[in-house]
């Protein structure tokens, strides 16, 4: 082996467990309040409350969740699942605590999530992102995702938003028997 990596020993990435629920909710709420401050009303963001119980339900329903930690603190997560479109995996979310952005957590989560979706046998992955979330769009574009044709409208907290679709090829489209839950 050529060399061993010498990265921060306290930065890790792992599958989430149900005991991470509180931290996952905290990260999502914090990230939303920053990322969407120009998109959703302040009153909506201030009242945002992601129930901890939702995470166990998501995981039971087949949603994979990866967490990125720093100094033993969960500072970001990604979630993924089968998309509504047959044959597509979906990156459902990547959120990083605003206090820990710019440290590579998002990139690590994205790469690991692509690998996890690839492992599940999908040839391609898609995601939906609010069209006005330009920083997120640049993030994905810089990492090989391209804008797809479809878009959709949603009402989130009383605000009409347009979601645009990004797509990426997962290269192998691995075909194999069902694997264990990625968690």
């Amino acid at each position: 082996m050529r060399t061993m990596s010498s990265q921060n020993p306290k930065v890790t990435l792992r599958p989430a467990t149900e005991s991470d629920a509180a931290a996952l909710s905290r990260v999502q709420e914090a990230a939303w309040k920053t990322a969407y401050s120009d998109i959703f009303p302040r009153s909506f963001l201030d009242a945002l409350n992601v129930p901890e119980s939702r995470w166990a339900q998501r995981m039971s329903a087949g949603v994979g969740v990866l967490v990125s930690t720093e100094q033993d603190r969960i500072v970001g997560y990604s979630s993924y699942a089968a998309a509504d479109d047959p044959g597509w995996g979906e990156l459902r979310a990547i959120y990083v605590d605003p206090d820990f952005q710019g440290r590579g957590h998002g990139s690590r989560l994205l790469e690991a999530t692509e690998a996890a979706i690839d492992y599940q046998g999908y040839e391609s992955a898609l995601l939906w992102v609010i069209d006005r979330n330009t920083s997120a769009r640049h993030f994905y574009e810089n990492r090989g995702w391209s804008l797809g044709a479809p878009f959709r409208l949603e009402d989130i907290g009383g605000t009409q938003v347009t979601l645009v679709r990004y797509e990426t090829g997962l290269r192998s489209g691995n075909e194999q028997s069902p694997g264990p839950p990625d968690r």
Partner: protein
Amino acid sequence: MLRASLLLVLSVNLGGGFGEASATINSVAGESMTISIEVEVEDSADSVVAHLFAPGEQALTIPLLHRGGDLFGIQTELRVIDYQVVFEAIGDVGVESASVSLTALGAEFPSGGVATTTTEPDGFSSEARGWGWLALGLAAASLSVLAIWVLGGKDNEDDVESESQSDSPAGDRV
């Protein structure tokens, strides 16, 4: 330099489509440890995952990050257990490594209190592992069905709908 040399010695050549692999425990806190796992892939691979097994533990599949060239790795948190590890490279031709323990990969556990997994179940061949995945998948599906049944269909549908709305804007501000 000395540490690097030691790590070189403690890595193991897996063969069968994989090069050298290693595991290094960075820290231990209570029942969890921070560990780095790395593996070389001889042929080009699109993705590499590590499957970890231990008696009485849920099997874990952890995606590895590409660290340049043919090297993939991850720094992750695990329970302080000498897991058995099977690497799987995903590409045009998927390959799985032989099962190897973290100790064999060079992980040095603190003395005492470490569960070991010296061997896989007898006959745990690649084919058997495939059936094992299938069994795990079916078990997970059964649990999901049970969970849906316990939660009640309507409540679950509502949750999926609300989750889809709240989670779909996959924004990141890295």
